């Protein structure tokens, strides 16, 4: 617009948003990275923290474990997600709609519920373990450690592969496949030589997303990993034991972790940008019908996976209505767990909804305004904001928790132990969903609509609130619901930031499980799961589709 600097509404918005990100993200992160290079007592520059990490097996083993488990989870997710996506897109599968909804539910439900349910089922005193022990005197393989992490995370993360790949498959025009057939490809070769190369970039992008989620996850390894340390759990335990604000070693580990995730993130960007062939299908792949044995096998495979991945939800709902004695579930129904929850842990429920609500309001506001300034008011400052809003993709939740705590437990602004710090953690972590959906809808709104309003005598700021924001709302809300669902299920940052006054449901579920108070944990998980499912249904209603883009 005008060359001279104008201090208008949008400048104020830009500076405010930039200020928020600088205060709650850039400043804490910088503090963390600087701390990583300091000696705990003298505050002198040192590499000792990193030397310590890379010289003791106990420490660097966690890094190896993280990489190994995340890689295995990624491969397994592809092995499961890819065929399901192909079968569901190309062939008639009974109950397809329901299956899709269940897959999405299993993806968006609280991550740690999976771990904890599988412990209830197959743990040391789990139902299934005991069943085999009593009836057949059989010891089923242990669920703890690497195997458990693999099982739980794969069942939670393969939906990413499924969603990405089926999205890409739907965009393949059937003429491409027919062309391959007319050139004499056999069906199996058609899959290998035509379809796979076409969806490869999407598959890789999905795979990296799975990897990032797997390596950053805290809830699963902490509940089911037992001796199998990974980076987030190690950082957490080191941080908790290094009390007194001298968290230099934890900071160094967090730095290593962020270094790793940044590299993965850059690779992912590179692949997405290189995704050269933009496909848009005029004639999607024809849905075929499988015959005979292959039809049965396809159904068995898909149903088995989907049922396995939804078992945790069913388990917590079922057990939440059982009577308990200590850590034991009794064979009778009772609302005792719910009564306990409401009398003793009610605060965590209200906290979850209140914080979640405040966070989502802030997320919507920041999301809409940020999307607007970075699409319509481009400047150097908005480029900075664009870059900074990418950070939440790279920073694992536990690292974000530590950075916020380190930055705000001393100095001018003390926020440790407050609701504010919890809410800001939610906002920073879950803003990207809303931001992306806001930007996406803005790209669909022609700037001339705004100009029409301005030419009719409405000032630009008024136009934003009168016209643009109203037109953006449906898109913004679809992203906001995803933000909401992931806010109320947030664990890895909150578990570091909470106090007994500010704890949320997911934190409480975690602490209850650790205390082996399984009944209350199940009741809280049920409340959380039901909230998630209702929110999802609203999302489907709002977007009018059964698809979700993460």
């Amino acid at each position, binding site marked *: 617009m005008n060359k001279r600097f104008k201090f208008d509404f949008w400048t104020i918005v830009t500076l405010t948003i930039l200020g928020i990100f600088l205060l709650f993200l850039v400043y804490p992160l910088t503090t963390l990275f600087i701390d990583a290079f300091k000696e705990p007592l003298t505050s002198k520059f040192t590499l000792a923290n990193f030397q310590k990490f890379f010289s003791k097996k106990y420490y660097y083993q966690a890094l190896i474990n993280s990489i190994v488990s995340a890689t295995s989870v990624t491969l397994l997710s592809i092995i499961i997600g890819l065929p399901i996506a192909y079968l569901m897109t190309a062939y008639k599968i009974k109950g397809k709609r329901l299956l899709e909804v269940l897959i999405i539910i299993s993806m968006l439900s609280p991550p740690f519920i999976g771990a904890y349910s599988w412990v209830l089922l197959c743990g040391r005193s789990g139902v299934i373990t005991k069943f085999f022990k009593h009836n057949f005197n059989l010891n089923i393989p242990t669920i703890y450690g690497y195997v458990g992490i693999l099982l739980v995370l794969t069942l939670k993360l393969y939906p990413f592969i499924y969603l990405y790949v089926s999205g890409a498959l739907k965009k393949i025009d059937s003429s491409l496949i027919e062309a391959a057939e007319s050139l004499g490809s056999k069906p199996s070769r058609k899959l290998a030589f035509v379809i796979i190369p076409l969806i490869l970039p999407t598959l890789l992008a999905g795979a990296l997303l799975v990897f990032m989620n797997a390596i950053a996850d805290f809830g699963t390894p902490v509940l089911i990993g037992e001796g199998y340390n990974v980076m987030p759990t190690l950082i957490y335990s080191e941080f908790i034991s290094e009390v007194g604000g001298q968290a230099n070693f934890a900071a160094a580990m967090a730095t290593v972790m962020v270094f790793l995730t940044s590299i993965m993130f850059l690779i992912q960007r590179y692949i997405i940008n290189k995704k050269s062939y933009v496909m848009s299908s005029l004639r999607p792949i024809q849905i075929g019908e499988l015959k005979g044995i292959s039809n049965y096998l396809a159904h068995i495979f898909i149903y088995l996976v989907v049922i396995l991945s939804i078992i945790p939800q069913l388990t917590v709902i079922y057990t939440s209505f059982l009577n308990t004695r200590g850590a034991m579930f009794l064979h009778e129904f009772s609302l005792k767990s719910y009564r306990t929850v409401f009398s003793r842990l009610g605060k965590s429920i209200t906290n979850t909804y209140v914080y979640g609500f405040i966070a989502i309001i802030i997320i919507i506001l920041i999301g809409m305004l940020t999307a607007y300034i970075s699409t319509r008011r481009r400047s150097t400052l908005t480029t900075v904001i664009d870059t900074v809003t990418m950070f939440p993709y790279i920073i694992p939740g536990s690292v974000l928790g530590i950075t916020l705590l380190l930055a705000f437990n001393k100095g001018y602004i003390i926020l440790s132990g407050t609701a504010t710090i919890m809410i800001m953690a939610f906002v920073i972590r879950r803003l990207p969903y809303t931001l992306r959906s806001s930007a996406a809808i803005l790209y669909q709104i022609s700037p001339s*609509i705004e*100009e*029409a309003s*301005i*030419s*009719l005598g409405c*000032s630009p700021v008024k136009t934003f609130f009168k016209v643009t924001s109203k*037109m953006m709302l449906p898109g913004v809300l679809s992203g906001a619901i995803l933000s909401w669902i992931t806010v109320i299920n947030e664990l890895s940052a909150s578990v570091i930031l909470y106090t007994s006054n500010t704890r949320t449901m997911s934190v409480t579920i975690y602490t209850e499980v650790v205390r082996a108070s399984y009944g209350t944990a199940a009741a809280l998980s049920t409340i959380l799961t039901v909230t998630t499912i209702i929110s999802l249904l609203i999302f489907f209603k709002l977007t009018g589709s059964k698809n979700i883009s993460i």
Partner: protein
Amino acid sequence: MSVAIIIENVVKRYEKTTVIPNLSLQIKNGEFFTLLGPSGCGKTTLLRMIAGFNSIDGGCIKFDDKVINEIPAYKRNIGMVFQNYAIFPHLTVKENVEYGLKLRKVPKSESDRRVEEILKTVKMYDYKDRLPDKLSGGQQQRVALARAIVIRPNVLLMDEPLSNLDAKLRIEMRSVIRDIQKQIGITTVYVTHDQEEALAISDRIAVMKDGVVQQVGTPCQIYKRPTNIFVATFIGSSNLIKAKINIENGERYVVFNKDYRIKMNNLSSNVKDGQDVIVSIRPEELKIANKGLKVKILKGTFFGKFINYEFTLIDDNVFGENKVCEFVQDISDTNKFLRENDIIYLEPDLSRINVFNEDGSINLIEDVILYE
């Protein structure tokens, strides 16, 4: 209410590139003025400077005597019609039209009356409670027009308002716009790259190229006496043929070849003997004759009222890359149809053809008007 627009030496730069180097125009109160030029020549840029959506990097724009450079768009009281209609999708037809009146705090009764009147004028009254997604493109554009006019703006600005419509609707909407503009008498600046549309709709046209105004005039002036070969070929079509000036006993001739020259009475007095020129002849300015330009017919296309022939010159002295020329033959004039490879003579209509200097930048005919 309506104003004259005076544009004085305006400049527009995007970063390093200057899109409009120095442009001046005077648009009279109440006239239908069209900015015409190939895409990318800066028409939209100029229109948006008038509207206030683009800054003015040099010079000034006035509404009557008032410099508007620093007045923000929303205070300029302009009516604007966009290529993609830009109807508010969440408001009904009536609410769209009311929008500007509400902002101006026009009393309800008057507002209702004006909305009704304008909706009837654009023949959209029956649709007043519909949402825009239920309207066709042409209907949406009528609503956009009503919405822009109802606020009684100083000027009405339109940026290619018809280019998203199909050919038939375009011609229909063209006269709707023209009629309503005349009825209301509002100063209108209209942008298009379609020369036919510009000729049909405008009081005056400014032909632009690379941010520079080439010629300003009535459709007739511009068509008949284009100021350079860019205008001659951009508006309508023209055959360009290389020739030489010959001055003999004070008489000025245009020499095509050793066998054929024409005597011109309206050449400017600056032409010199032996000067190279480009003769621009429109297809309808050629007639079959016994002498003249010797041509070979390539093909004829029958259009009903006339036949369009493509031909090449035997001496091959056509200017430019495209060596194919055209002429039209009125059906009523003849019962002789030409065939491929026929060799004939064509004679130009001396009072209508144009003669340009060697590089085509200056029209050498006496009565050319650069800026009407």
